[in-house]
């Protein structure tokens, strides 16, 4: 029992470094993915098929294939085009597992987020749109003030799930040699043979961060829905019955 605690204690600093990389990858991909997803969602619902069809195919492809395949396709697959990538000067990026990891995670979450957002945009009550038009809002003002804020709030629960999934999916980057939490755990296991001790420690760390994130999103949801709640939350006690 003593050795087990020693092994875990000794490897904890390295595992904390690993989880920092995990969080960093998640943060970058979530931020970039969201920035991409908003315009993509707007194009997705566009009436012109020239605009919507490419976006729909992109979303269909990235939602329909495993993330691991996408990571392999970008990291190993780019190796097939070394010469072409070298001539345009992109090979220095595609050579780096870190860049490939962020790129594939970003594209993946952008596709899922765009799909969630387009669902929310289509569910904005038509009355609100009609009222905004009646007030003489231009299209961009209508999107900025009415449709997008409403859509964001409606999409938040689904988006929370997406962020948690992405956080857990970052464990796949360990397969392309990055030292995230899973990567660090695999290296320690290979050296120490303390298989389940180390993996279970890693699992506990993932669990803690996941539930911390869920808690944070719950606060955000509470904050954004203030105007929808009753003044005193008596109906919550009913719901908990």
């Amino acid at each position, binding site marked *: 029992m003593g050795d087990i605690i020693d092994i875990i204690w000794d490897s904890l600093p390295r595992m904390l470094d690993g989880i920092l990389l995990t969080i960093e990858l998640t943060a970058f991909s979530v931020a970039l993915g969201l920035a991409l997803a908003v315009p993509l969602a707007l194009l997705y619902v566009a009436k012109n098929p020239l605009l919507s069809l490419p976006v729909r195919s992109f979303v269909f492809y990235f939602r329909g*294939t*495993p993330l691991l*395949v996408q990571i392999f396709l970008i990291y*190993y697959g780019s190796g097939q085009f070394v010469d072409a990538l070298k001539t345009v000067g992109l090979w220095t990026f595609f050579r780096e597992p870190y860049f490939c990891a962020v790129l594939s995670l970003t594209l993946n979450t952008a596709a899922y987020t765009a799909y969630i957002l387009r669902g929310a945009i289509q569910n904005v009550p038509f009355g609100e749109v009609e009222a905004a038009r009646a007030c003489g809002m231009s299209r961009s003002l209508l999107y900025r003030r009415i449709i997008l804020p409403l859509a964001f709030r409606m999409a938040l629960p689904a988006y929370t799930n997406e962020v948690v999934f992405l956080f857990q999916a970052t464990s796949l980057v360990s397969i392309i040699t990055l030292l995230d939490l899973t990567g660090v755990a695999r290296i320690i296991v290979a050296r120490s*043979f303390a*298989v389940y001790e180390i*993996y279970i420690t890693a699992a506990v760390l993932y669990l803690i961060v996941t539930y911390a994130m869920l808690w944070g999103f719950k606060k955000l949801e509470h904050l954004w829905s203030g105007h929808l709640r009753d003044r005193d939350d008596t109906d919550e006690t009913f719901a908990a019955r």
Partner: protein
Amino acid sequence: MLWDGVQVTLSVALSSMALALVCGLLGAWGKLSSNKLAHTTAQTYTTVIRGVPELILILIVYYGTPTLIQDTLELYGIDIIIDINPFLAGFMTLGVIYGAFATEVFRGAYHAVPKGQIEAAKAIGMNRMLLARRILLPQMWRFALPGLGNVWMVLIKATALISVIQLPELLRNSDIAARALRMPFTFYFAASLYYLAIVSVSMLLQKRAEAWAARGVRRA
């Protein structure tokens, strides 16, 4: 070779889905049960499984379980080496993981059955088995179908992770081919199209199944 992989992928996915349905029904029963032990067990099950990446769980089951058993047996002076078959490890892990997601689906489906019907069944003296068989399950399937379809889609894509423990499924076989012929992009892209095809066919079947399950529902 890729086609062989597709067959392995499909058989892992189908068997995991079957296990997930069993785990899901058990989990939902536990969550809805008034028995404290069953409730806590089910609650812990879904909380832990959904908070830990699939890859870590697969590694724990594939590499961790044999060592754990060996270490335990060593304490009793038995010295053997145990190897888990990657198919078994993959199927068990994915089944248990997606069982946690199926649990939530079934729980939602249970709540979607109108309370009055359950009361009425009790009032005419049905016992719990009969109530489950005649009233709950036939309706729960219909409510659960969209959610289960989702679980299936995610499960199909998650089978790619088992390539990490060297099961010759679709991604693993494309990997071998890609390395042998030095055409990584071609083979991974081909693999991705196979996944896309499986997902598309599943979507069509799901639509059919939902229409079939709803055939007795009158729409306004």
